[in-house]
């Protein structure tokens, strides 16, 4: 999918050389169309033997019974060792104690920040807790207004759900309740998280609309924003797009936390490789997954695309261990927690984005927003509730 769908072609010749009987045909799909395309392909019975799935999409495809359980393959495999994968990432692929996907690359979210701005505010280290972060934001804002300028210390886009969910998990919310058949967003934990999020907009630490930040990299270079939560692809983008004079002044840090344990919980995103349950070439499909997710190939893939390997052994390679920017990701990957395994998850978080927008623009109060959001989530989960109550699924 997307860029990696193109880049993976470079790894194919070596595979075909090793397994002369297998020929690989790569179909690239743009990310924006991938989800619909895969579902439609399932309905039409034309899913490929092996395909890539976003980690949050896995439950949908297990509901469809579209995926081959991979435990038997892993048991006899020499290359794929489950304990080599980051725990939180592997758990994302285990549903009802069955393994359905092998992580291909990981994507978790950390903070990208400006060292010089933090230094000027008296922070030689990035903040470890959100309380500290809010203090830092206040200092940056005051320093700016003393100079008569407007600064947004912590950019939290109103069209992203990841920070809201990460905050919620850090606050101890299970997000869904009653065997994942109802929303738990109006519960006290998530409310605490949403209040934290709302305070960034209220105190104008983050702009409450999207119109001000039209070019993230310019805004970051100009100092309009100081901190931003984002993923590994931005290591490459920042290296290319931030002017040379500022290259030594940006860095990455794991998420601050709500308690005293650092880092704070983040999400195991990224993608996995899966086998279509009705594939006629499951053995060959497995060989291909085994090959692509091997330590050796995931290091190579990192070299080509910058996608982070899900295997701890790959991180011992110097290309990764010496990269100062990926260090924060390594630390963060030690503390990622899987998201609820429900087919409706994608639908839920897209709706959550809308409610983030509502509280950012103060269209609704936190309590009102969460109450309405929970009602919508309960409706989305109605079918699941019925199936669970009738013991059709777990």
């Amino acid at each position, binding site marked *: 999918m997307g860029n990696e769908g193109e880049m993976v072609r470079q790894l194919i010749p070596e595979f075909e050389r090793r397994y002369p009987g297998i020929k690989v045909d790569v179909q690239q799909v743009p990310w924006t169309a991938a*989800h*619909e395309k895969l*579902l*439609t392909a*399932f*309905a039409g019975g034309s899913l490929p033997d092996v395909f890539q799935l976003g980690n949050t999409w896995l439950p*949908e495809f297990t*509901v*469809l*019974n*579209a995926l081959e359980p991979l435990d038997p393959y892993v048991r006899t495999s020499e290359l794929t060792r489950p304990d080599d994968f980051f725990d939180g990432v592997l758990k994302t692929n285990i549903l009802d104690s069955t393994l359905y996907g092998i992580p291909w690359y990981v994507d978790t979210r950390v903070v990208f920040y400006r060292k010089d701005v933090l230094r000027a505010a008296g922070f030689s280290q990035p903040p470890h807790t959100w309380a500290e972060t809010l203090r830092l934001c206040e200092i940056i804002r005051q320093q700016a207004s003393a100079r008569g300028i407007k600064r947004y210390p912590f950019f939290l886009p109103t*069209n992203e759900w990841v920070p809201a969910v990460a905050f919620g998990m850090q606050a101890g919310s299970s997000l869904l309740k009653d065997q994942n058949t109802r929303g738990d967003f109006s519960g006290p934990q998530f409310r605490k998280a949403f209040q934290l999020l709302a305070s960034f907009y209220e105190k104008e630490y983050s702009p409450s*609309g*999207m*119109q001000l930040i*039209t*070019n993230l990299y310019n805004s970051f270079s100009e100092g309009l924003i100081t901190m931003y939560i984002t993923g590994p692809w931005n290591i490459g983008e920042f290296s290319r797009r931030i002017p040379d004079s500022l290259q030594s002044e940006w860095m990455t840090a794991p998420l601050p936390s709500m308690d005293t344990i650092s880092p704070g919980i983040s999400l195991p995103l990224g993608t996995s490789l899966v086998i279509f349950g009705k594939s006629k070439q499951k053995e060959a499909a497995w060989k291909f997954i085994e090959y692509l997710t091997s330590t050796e190939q995931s290091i190579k893939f990192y070299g080509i695309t910058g996608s982070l390997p899900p295997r701890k052994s790959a991180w011992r390679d110097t290309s990764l261990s010496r990269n100062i920017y990926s260090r924060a990701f390594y630390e963060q990957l030690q503390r990622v927690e899987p998201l609820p395994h429900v*087919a*409706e998850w*994608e*639908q839920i978080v897209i709706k959550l984005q*809308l409610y983030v*927008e*509502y509280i950012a*623009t103060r*269209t609704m109060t936190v309590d009102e927003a969460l109450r309405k959001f929970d009602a919508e989530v309960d*409706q989305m989960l109605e*079918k*699941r509730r*019925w*199936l669970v109550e009738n013991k*059709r*699924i777990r």
Partner: protein
Amino acid sequence: MKKHKGHFQNEQRTAAAWMFLAPAMSAIVLFFVVPVLSALLMSVTDFDIYALGNLKYVRFMGLQNYMRILDTPLFWTAMRNTMYFVVVGAPLSVALSLGAALMVNSKLTRFKPFFRTIYFLPVVTSLVAVAVVWRYLYHPGHGLLNHVLSWVGIAPVDWLGDPLFAMPAIIVMAVWKNFGYNMLIFIAGLQNIPEELFEASHLDGAGGWRQFWDITIPVLAPTTVFVVMITIIGYFQLFAEPYVMTEGGPMNATTSIVLMMYEQGFRWWNMGYAAAVAFVLFAVIVFFSVIQMLIQKRMQS
């Protein structure tokens, strides 16, 4: 005997007629009647992703999908947005295409084929390509539109990012993209007006304005009715413009009924619900078309 022969001939004729109709009829049945009936059937079930995985999980819902639609805030938002688009966009489109048709058809205009072509060009241009250009025009920072507005001292507007301006921005783009089609129909209508009518009225001393109101408009009435009808029906089905420009945002300000249906159906695979949305939209369009026909009848009598 004669009578019998005639009957036989008639029967033969009917059979022949059916044979000629068969290819077209079977296509209509296969690609129209069958899908519409299946959709109707689907709209009284909760066919969804679970049902796609296991057909045993389909439930018969009766009219519950329809009740749920009326109970969904997003449906009413989408309805409001769609009405906004129809009420503002359709008259604008009809007026603009009539104006363009009159100009292109005027005796004073030179290079008629040239203007006809460039006004029609947006209609045949791929919407995705058009969207790329328009998104650039609407860009809050570097967009041409804001640049021009800054000359008269208007502060930059985030056209597609502000819930207040997103729909007007979509309307302007949609009208620009579509008016050429109606313009061609109007031109055809204008060319059907006999030149003698204008000459006679000229001799009677009628000026240009008088000719427009007393000749052009009445003669063009059937064309206008047709154009208004297809424009309204078409505009109710607003989808592609917000789909490529805003994805229904910001804060659902450009979510139309069809966009909502598409998202429910193909993004979340709630097929039963989405099918019900389609029939609700159908009912709305029928309702407005009937009203329009009634108004038309009254005006004629």
